[in-house]
């Protein structure tokens, strides 16, 4: 009789997860988005990914992540944001590796900025064409470039805000569930209070009062208000597990509360908590899009999917402004929901039993 290898819980869950084609497709899609977000400046941009100028190698494209990363020499030499001709004129020896699509997410490309490339169409004339695969908005900015760069925002919003919410939620839930008594009482009431705060209204108020509203602050608020569901679930799990035999064993072996919570209960309580986090990512992305749609999103010139939808609102005949970002938001949210569902099915033993 062959020896049965006993796999860990997570390995088993992963095996079950892998068998679900939809959930796997969703995971692949999210990985693809992560790839797009990281490589955004190399996919669409007007600044070289790498270039050699006056004997030095630079990566001006990094300035898309943070404008402080733009090498000062190009400002000094009065490149004024247009690289192709300036590179050639100011240093004939120079070479550059260009992004796949020569389009900028923040401005319209001018006539002949790239040899042979016409200026981007403006007004309502920016139908999808050879140079602008997804068309342009009213001001001539390429929609594809905006979407590619907007991926960063869409993903960051989900991960950052839910990372924050998850941390707060698990800590609060763990403390309440494990200790019980008045601590539980207090934390549960706090949870209920926070539950009553309307996130959107809070963000709108913040935008009005904060001096430099950035996308990070928005994420922080989504996270700081979105942990309540996670906390409740975590509390329930901790409440259930603290009276289980292995916890009793650990305690009788002399383990302190912190050790018990982190080493013994948390790994066992994590699976059900991950599910609302995944769903939370999806809703955070929707919240951010909704905010941008209302005009309260990341400050302009922002490349946010929701902001694109907002542009479309004033002229519905420009269907490409609705269709592409709309599809992107839909697919991303769907992907997260599918992942959440797959995760739930893969980790919940009861669901597994019922399938048999």
């Amino acid at each position, binding site marked *: 009789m062959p020896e049965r290898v006993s796999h860990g819980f997570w390995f088993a869950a992963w095996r079950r997860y892998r068998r679900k084609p939809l959930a796997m497709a969703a995971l692949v899609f999210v990985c693809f988005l992560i790839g797009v977000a990281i490589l955004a400046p190399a996919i669409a941009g007007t600044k070289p990914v790498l270039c050699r100028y006056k004997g030095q190698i630079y990566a001006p494209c990094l300035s898309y992540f943070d*404008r402080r990363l733009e*090498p*000062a020499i190009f*400002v000094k030499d009065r490149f004024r*944001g247009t690289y192709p001709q300036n590179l050639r004129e100011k240093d004939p020896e120079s070479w550059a590796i260009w992004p796949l699509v020569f389009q900028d997410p923040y401005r319209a490309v001018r006539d002949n900025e790239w040899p042979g490339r016409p200026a981007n169409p403006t007004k309502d004339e920016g139908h999808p064409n050879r140079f602008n695969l997804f068309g342009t908005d009213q001001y001539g900015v390429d929609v594809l470039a905006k979407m590619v760069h907007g991926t960063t925002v869409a993903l960051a919003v989900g991960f950052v805000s839910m990372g924050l919410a998850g941390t707060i939620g698990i800590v609060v839930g763990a403390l309440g569930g494990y200790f019980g008594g008045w601590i539980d009482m207090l934390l549960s009431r706090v949870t209920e209070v926070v539950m009553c705060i309307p996130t959107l209204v809070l963000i709108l108020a913040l935008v009005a009062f904060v001096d430099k509203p950035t996308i990070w602050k928005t994420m922080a608020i989504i996270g700081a208000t979105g942990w309540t569901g996670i906390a409740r679930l975590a509390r329930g799990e901790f409440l259930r597990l603290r009276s289980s035999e292995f916890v009793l064993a650990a305690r009788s072996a002399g383990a302190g509360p912190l050790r018990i919570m982190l080493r013994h209960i948390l790994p066992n309580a994590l699976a059900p908590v991950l599910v609302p986090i995944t769903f939370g990512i999806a809703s955070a992305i929707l919240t951010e899009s909704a905010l941008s749609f209302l*005009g309260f999103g990341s*400050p*302009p010139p922002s490349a946010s999917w929701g902001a694109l939808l907002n*542009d479309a609102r004033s002229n519905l005949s420009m269907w490409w402004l609705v269709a592409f970002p709309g599809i992107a938001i839909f697919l991303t949210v769907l992907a997260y929901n599918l992942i959440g569902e797959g995760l739930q099915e893969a980790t919940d033993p009861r669901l597994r039993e019922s399938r048999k």
Partner: protein
Amino acid sequence: MLQQTSTDRDWQLAVIRLVGIVGIVGIGAAGCGRQSDDIPADVLPESLVAEAARTKPFTTPADRLLEDFEPPALDALDRDAKWIDRPVLDGLELMRSQQKDEPLLATVEEALAIKNDAAPANAKILSALGQLPAPHQANLEARIDRHVVGDLGSTNPIMISTSAEFDILGLTGFGLFSFDSRLEPFATADTVASWQSSTDGMLDKVVLRDDLVWSDGRPITAHDIAFTFQVIMDPRVPVPAVRSGTDQLRWVHAYDDQTVVFFHKEALATNVWNINFPVLPKHVYERTWEADPTLKDSTIHVQLEQSPVSGGPYEIVERKRGQQIVLKRRSSWTTVRGKQVREDPFFKEIRFRIIEDPNTSLLALKAGEIDEMMLLPEQWTTQTTGDDFYERSTKVTAPEWVSFHFGWNIDTPFFADRRVRRAMSYAFEHDRMLEELCYGLYTPAAGNFHETSWMAPKKKLVPAKQDLDKAEALLDEAGWVDHDNDGVRDKEVNGRLVPFEFSILVNQQPLRVAICTLLQQNLEQVGVRLNVRPMESTVLQQLTQERKFEAYFGGWGAGTDPDTSENIWATGAGRNFTSYSNPEVDRLFAEGRRELDREKRAEKYARIQEILYEDQPYTWLYWRNSFYGFSKDLRGYVFSPRGPYHYSPGFSSLWMPQAE
């Protein structure tokens, strides 16, 4: 416009103020309609207007705006003063006589058949459809559905401050004065028998007609006017807009039921606007005013708010909050003591439909649910060109004196230096903004007075063309150089290296944000960092009012008189958000107000404009022209620098033909 719109000076001022403050914020006010598509309504916080009003210097303590005054007897006045007659005119007649001399460019049928795709077509439509009706040509039983973007704050005549209130009080309010499409003031023949000014400029005497009644049947008399003046100047009454200007009067006294005399503090060129304020019925408010000086809290004032006593040709018969306001022609306006004493206004019923979203209102226009609306440039260019629009409607455009600008806060280390402000103007791609962002529909602006106005300089000022080299040279000169090699210019201020990075406040309207984003790109090219901060209008108002900004995007509507812009430019003035100060400008404004000769006045204001152009406290961007869509059933629209409605006759020149 109907008589009533005659209280224009005020409304005027109110409006100016509005467009002013509100303009900044993105809500077009009266005469400009609404331009923002994401602002719910024209709401102006009272405190703000009150603040603006306070900036006019008072000679009395703050708790008492009026000093006691014993008006001399009328015979003594008549004996001492030398009177000259001032014009008493009928706005419609005036327009009729003006139109007689203008060539007709097309017939009505032609004008209705063409599409407004270029200037000649626009001229034809304006010419053919702007004509007043021949006798019996107008359908006096007609109803018009007008578009307003927000509900009324108040129906009390002296509480007006927004464009919607202005529109409705223009039809239901009583007034003595008005001005024509060239902004020339006159007394309206419908209410005034004679108007005289003293040659020393200190007195104005008006004799009212004796056939005027309020909608409750009581006569309208000179006492109502003197009474209203007292109410407006009562510091307990929270008058949002109409106090400024009125506060320049020394006293108003009614000598009998018909004769009222305005006493001025000083002989000012603006006195002709100062005597023009809305009028309350004395018999209604006399007792309630003392009991409740807010004029809106007590039961009786709440009732009056719902169904006010009207002194104009129309009265409010229905008011559904947030939906519509219905006005009906009032017979006691035209027929007094069984005799017809005034012409019937052209519409029997006027319905104001409140629609906030511009897309919804455009759909309503196309469906024939409303008969007129102001169009956004984007709607003008892209959504009103097809047969679906021209089936029921047509559209026209005309210049309007509403300008927009970037304001630079001179109180910050960045913009204290004039060279820096000029560098901003040279860095900005003005042409691209006009062509690409504004669809080529707006007129470039380079100063605070419109180039076609009498006070504009003879030599036309033009906006700076983008010249990045010049901008960089100016910044270098001003000491903003990239010392620390991080790609951003900086300068040592108070021993600290300050990078040239600042924020611009802007209303969330997409076009305005796009213009600021263009500025951001341009400045990035010369090593200056700009953060664009779109925000809600109320927040923007507050921050600019408190001078808590580095730069902002805003706009002003021009007043009927150049003096109204003094509180934007004079040192320390209420709406001088950029903290601009130039003694010469202060002096020229003071002189301009006292100069009674038009030519010499014009020179002073032209000089002010030249100085401002040199100093560039603003980078002026564009004049926003009027764009209107009208039902094909409408005739008689004529545009003034303040749009198609806010002058005399204005709205009251509109009519509908009899059905064939």
